[in-house]
């Protein structure tokens, strides 16, 4: 086990506590850089989606994980970013301009959503953000002069400084990756400065934050704006990746997927957003695999245990019809959320920390280390 000896206040500020981090993140970065030349085009496409989902995940973490304001409206912010890009593109606005404009507009709308949200907490805030998402969805479907309604909008191939960047090119992947990395670095910077600490203070005790001089309303609005702006940036990339956008892509289910990203990844660290994004993007091909191959497999197993070909065929068709049921995906998402909340509230990243600690302390790891403790009663009166 490594013991850190801090000799300078710098040691509490720097992003990498010790050189081990530099090595592991360096290796990770190198792997990500050579990925387009090694992986298949399908996996590369998945990796781009991981980058976009992780960016939204980081945005949601700022709002939900660190400021403690739940949101089920991030699909709407993503939609606003995507539609701004698609709309401005029609007037031949260059990419850097509409990229920034999409972020700025989404950030502004995020701040406007933040104002009514100031008086709402917990479940009421969730309902308010759901209604916001539904309103945006409806506007996208009805405001045909701008959004082309349910017909959707075609998004032209990205052109950056005169060079066209197709959505499956390595350059597009690097663009998404750099947006993700910049988002993460910016967020880490924020978290180690007064604003980030004010966010965490609001999450844990608004009363105490206020009495320490934090303007709670202002910082909540700031948190909403930052989170929305980052989601807007991701929305532009999302639009380019899909090359076609329509209102039914930005439904409540997408918002829930974003919640799953941070819930499964772990809400206390930015690692969670990335792990959760990998999980949510990779579960789709996994479900497809189950749908396509599982029935045959089960039938095969049944056959080896002595079932006749008729029975095996019967089993296969039954399993296949179950696996292709409508809404099975949503049900599986639901089950996953419930299982994680019950058994691993710290998420995948929490699980990773536990595994790491197990080997660091081997053989002295105690199972109760991460046991949830009862916390002391706080005064709810003063809220």
């Amino acid at each position, binding site marked *: 086990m490594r013991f850190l000896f801090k000799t300078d206040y710098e040691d509490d500020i720097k992003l990498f506590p010790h050189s081990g981090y530099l090595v592991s993140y360096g290796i990770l970065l190198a792997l990500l850089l050579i990925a387009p030349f090694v992986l298949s085009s399908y996996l590369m496409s998945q990796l781009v989606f991981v980058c976009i989902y992780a960016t939204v995940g980081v945005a949601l973490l700022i709002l939900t994980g660190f400021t403690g304001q739940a949101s089920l409206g991030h699909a709407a912010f993503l939609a606003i970013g995507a539609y701004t890009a698609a709309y401005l593109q029609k007037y031949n606005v260059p990419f850097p301009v509409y990229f920034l404009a999409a972020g700025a507009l989404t950030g502004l709308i995020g701040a406007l959503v933040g104002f009514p949200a100031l008086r709402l907490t917990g479940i009421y805030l969730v309902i308010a953000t759901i209604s916001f998402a539904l309103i945006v969805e409806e506007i996208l479907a009805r405001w045909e002069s701008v959004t082309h309604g349910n017909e959707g909008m075609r998004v032209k191939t990205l052109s950056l400084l005169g060079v066209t960047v197709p959505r499956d090119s390595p350059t597009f992947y690097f663009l998404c990756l750099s947006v993700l990395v910049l988002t993460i670095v910016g967020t880490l910077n924020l978290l180690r400065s007064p604003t980030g600490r*004010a966010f965490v*203070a609001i999450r844990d005790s608004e*009363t*105490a934050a206020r009495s*320490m001089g934090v303007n709670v309303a202002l910082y909540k609005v700031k948190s909403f704006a930052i989170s929305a702006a980052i989601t807007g940036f991701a929305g532009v990339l999302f639009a380019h990746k899909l090359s076609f956008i329509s209102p039914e892509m930005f439904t409540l289910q997408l918002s829930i997927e974003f919640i799953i990203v941070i819930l499964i990844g772990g809400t206390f660290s930015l690692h969670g957003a990335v792990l959760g994004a990998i999980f949510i993007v990779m579960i789709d091909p996994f479900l497809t695999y189950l749908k396509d191959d599982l029935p045959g497999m089960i039938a095969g197993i049944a056959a080896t245990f002595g079932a006749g070909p008729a029975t095996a065929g019967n089993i296969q068709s039954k399993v296949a019809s179950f696996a292709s049921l409508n809404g099975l995906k949503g049900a599986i998402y639901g089950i996953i959320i419930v299982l994680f909340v019950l058994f691993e509230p710290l998420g995948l990243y929490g699980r990773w920390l536990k595994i790491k600690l197990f080997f660091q302390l081997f053989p002295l790891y105690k199972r109760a280390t991460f046991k949830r403790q009862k916390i002391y009663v*706080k005064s709810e009166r003063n809220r």
Partner: protein
Amino acid sequence: MSYFRAENLSLHFGGLKAVDAVSFAVEKGEILSIIGPNGAGKSSIFNLISRIYRPTSGRIFFEDQDITEEPPYDIAKLGIARTFQNIELFENATVLSNLLVGRHRHSTTQLWQELLFLPSVRANEKVHRRRVEQVIEFLDLEPYRDKLISGLPYGVRKVIELARALCSEPKLILLDEPSSGLNVEETDDMSFWIRDLKNELGVTVLMVEHDMSLVNRVSDRVIALNYGRVLAMGSPAEVQQHPDVVAAYLGA
């Protein structure tokens, strides 16, 4: 003119007069304790000063400035810090970041500077960190710097709350029952620290406390309250012998 002054301060919840026309003044550099039975309105006065409640009537002055209408977050900026009776720490953050929130009123950096973590932000952070370290040293919190609050025992949390208030470099500090839940030894430590607040840091202290031995040891003056009204005011000995105070505690 006194340093801090409350004039005819009242807080009514419907017909209940939690605080009823209370007037008192705190001189610069003194330790003033507010005592009284449960429900006497002691904590309510604190909540009025830190603007968690809005007074029904009356005015509050600090350094000759009327602060009755200031928003709650500006009270800290004026130099009034407080602790809470039931401990209001940021549970899922480290001790260090809890204390750094105490520095919030001194932060001058803009959001865009923080996103880029410019050298100015870094320099500011180091200043904050140094100030926090001084408080850590003052209150012997060295073993806990990187610990999460949620894993710390009650006595330590109580000290960390005091530390967080001190990190804001207050001129006036409001201590809401600093010794509640502490054992004899910890209460002793607390009484030394409260004395040191006054003598070494020159902070004016307004304190609500039930432990009379602590009150006797540290206070310069004492105010006794009951049913939201002032019963007696004066030195600790005077107040404790005041017939109305004796009646309030023991019954007539």
